[in-house]
């Protein structure tokens, strides 16, 4: 793992500590009486606060996961440095795009 990857990995981990506590709490609270599409969307629709929360979460989780996948591939497969870096970057970009689409869908659509 390069020094930059290491810093990004640990930095995003620290950033996500309060986000994960909030996410886990909300998951357990929200599923108590069963989950419905209306319930999810009534919470998120038009909410700048949830958009910001999930935007930050997606941004950090994508970087964290991309570096993690890259590290695992580097250690557990014969793939070289360039190939694993490419996979990691594509993974991060994919998660950013899918995440942005998900946030747009539950907040604005």
């Amino acid at each position, binding site marked *: 793992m390069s020094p930059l990857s290491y810093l990004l990995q*640990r930095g995003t981990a620290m950033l996500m500590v309060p986000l*994960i506590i909030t996410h886990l709490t909300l998951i*357990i609270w929200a599923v108590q009486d*069963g*989950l419905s599409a209306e319930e999810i969307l009534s919470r998120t629709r038009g909410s700048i606060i949830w958009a910001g929360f999930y935007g930050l979460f997606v941004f950090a989780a994508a970087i964290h996961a991309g570096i*993690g*996948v890259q590290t695992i591939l580097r250690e557990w497969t014969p793939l070289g440095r360039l190939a694993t870096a490419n996979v990691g970057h594509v993974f991060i970009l994919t998660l950013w795009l899918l995440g942005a689409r998900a946030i747009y869908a*539950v907040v604005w659509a």
Partner: protein
Amino acid sequence: MSVSGITRASRAHPGFVASLIHRASGLALAVFLPLHFYALGLALESETFTGFIAWSDQPLVKISEGLMVSALAVHFAGGLRLLAVEFFGLTRAQALWIALALAFALGVGILFLMRAF
């Protein structure tokens, strides 16, 4: 001690098991995330999203969801342990206990919230 003996000894160390669990839970989350985001993106078409949420209301899906929530909690606790070792100069044993205590405290807090609302 032979090289393989050293390898075996290090693998018996709790830190090795903890790092394997951290890696396995992290990998599971990385596979789950694109599916999770894709599914939420279905809200762009309200009927598809409603159908998806209804589809998710079956035992196997709920068990899978439970496993993913557990993977997140496990990866979270393991990550706190790692940060404690690397940034706060704690020994691995201290960090493990702190992570367990934090995970327990978080569990109690969440259980309280469940009862409170």
